[in-house]
């Protein structure tokens, strides 16, 4: 039930759960951040980037072996330039306290790729956060009890928080019976 240092999880996963890590980001071991010009986001790797379908397995592994049983936060981030949507899961160790453990999942932005298995069966607290990610970013969570829009009305088309959602020209005000 020890606390993990920053970035230590990746090496543990490589040894204990081999095919869990997302190969696309295996090479870039560093989590250094080079200074960039304006408008240049960077993909960070610390703590671990795992395959979408392995997230449930990693979550259970993290909880059972290291005691990170408190899933505090699920954030969806839309990296438009890299064509990715990243889901950041932050786990805390309720017994030991201390900083969080960030497990990342990176999926494509098109409807077919944008699927991540839901954690709600074991962490019911993730229910509303996954519904918010679905409503705002269009990430589909198979296994979620009632995946429906949480803020927008159900007939709303589009995902408002995506970077390519038009900020101007409100197509809802002058909709003419289309």
């Amino acid at each position, binding site marked *: 039930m020890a606390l993990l240092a920053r970035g230590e999880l990746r090496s543990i996963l490589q040894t204990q759960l081999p095919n869990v890590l997302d190969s696309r980001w295996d090479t870039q071991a560093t989590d250094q*951040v080079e*200074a*960039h*010009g*304006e*408008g*240049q*986001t*960077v993909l*960070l790797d610390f703590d671990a980037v795992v395959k979408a379908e392995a997230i449930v397995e990693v979550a259970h592994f993290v909880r059972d072996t290291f005691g990170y*049983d*408190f*899933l*505090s*936060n699920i*954030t969806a*981030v*839309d990296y438009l330039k890299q064509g990715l949507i990243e889901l*950041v899961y*932050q786990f*805390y160790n*309720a017994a030991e*306290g*201390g*900083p*969080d453990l960030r497990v990342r999942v990176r999926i494509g932005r098109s409807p077919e790729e944008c699927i991540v298995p839901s954690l709600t069966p*074991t*962490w*019911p*607290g*993730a*229910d*509303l*956060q996954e519904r918010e990610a679905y409503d*705002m970013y269009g990430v589909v969570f198979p296994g979620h009890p009632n995946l429906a829009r*949480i*803020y*927008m*009305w159900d007939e709303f088309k589009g995902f*408002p*928080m995506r970077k390519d959602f038009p*900020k101007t020209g409100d197509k809802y005000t002058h909709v003419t019976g289309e």
Partner: protein
Amino acid sequence: MLKTEELQINIGPQHPSTHGVFRMLVTVDGETLVDLKPVFGYLHRNHEQLGEVNTYLQNMPFTDRLDYFNSMVNNHAYARTIETLAGVEVPERAQYIRVIMDELSRILNHATAMGFMLGDMGAWQTALLWGMREREKILDMFEYVSGARMMCNYCRFGGVVRDIDDWFITELKKLMQGLPHYFDDFEGLLLNSEILLARARNIGVLPKELALAYSVTGPVLRGSGVAYDIRKAEPYAVYDRFKFKVPVGTVGDVYDRFLVRIAEMRESYKILEQALEQLPDATGGFINPKVKQQSLKAPAGEAYARVESPKGELGFYVVSDGSGSAYRYKVRAPSFINLSALADMCKGYTIADVVVILGSIDIVMGEVDR
């Protein structure tokens, strides 16, 4: 057996005791509740999109509108996130001032939150108005120091807008003389009153494992027996220099959360005393002068900082792309995630209890709908 038909009732969005526009679709068999579906979105202002459009400083007054009971705590959490993101260090005195404001905010939040819950129970707002009186005194001091009672906009990156002066400290000391009388009156009024015990004990039970699984935080989690308090688990802003206790419940029902909140007010009182003693003098400065507030640029990367707000863990997750405003700005709102446990807590109880259980979770819709 007499065939009873289930009745579906809408509690909210416009209902006297839903603490804002929040709707619960309740299916009831007779008086006992069978299923509860929360419905959100009535107060959704897309706060997170605003965060991406505004520059970092422009976004600070909008964080007042999240949990409008504790704008000081929201500012503190947001300022801490951007400070970790941009690597700004905060002078000692400013950290002490922020701790004093957070603890004052915790006292006024618990005083009014329990007042509202007791109002839902039917105690006709006596406890609420005593709580409001203490809140008024604290809000006057917030107004003196930040300029506004509820929308304080007090923190800046690397410190606070204005230093606290002698008037504030003498008034705070006078307030500290009055608070224990208020705590005793409040406990004497209702703590052992038989009807409150009948209405609060074993109602809305959330066992320990379920509390962790629902990732609830704050008094709701501590009421269920898990002593997880961010000020102790991951101390921030000089909290590691104060000696205070973490109150914890046993059964995890409405009564335990009620007791935990009262005990937390007393702990905040202790923290305020110690903070006042150890407050460094003004030479340390109340803000880091090297920070250019309006045109603050953070290097590309991400940061998550969290604060123990009176309602639970309030965190801001900000991804920056090197420019002056956030690329992704997410608020981890405690009321929003505590609500996910509401359905499970209410099953099997009656409508009268649903309202009390919702009151015991203490939500604010500004934070839930963002």
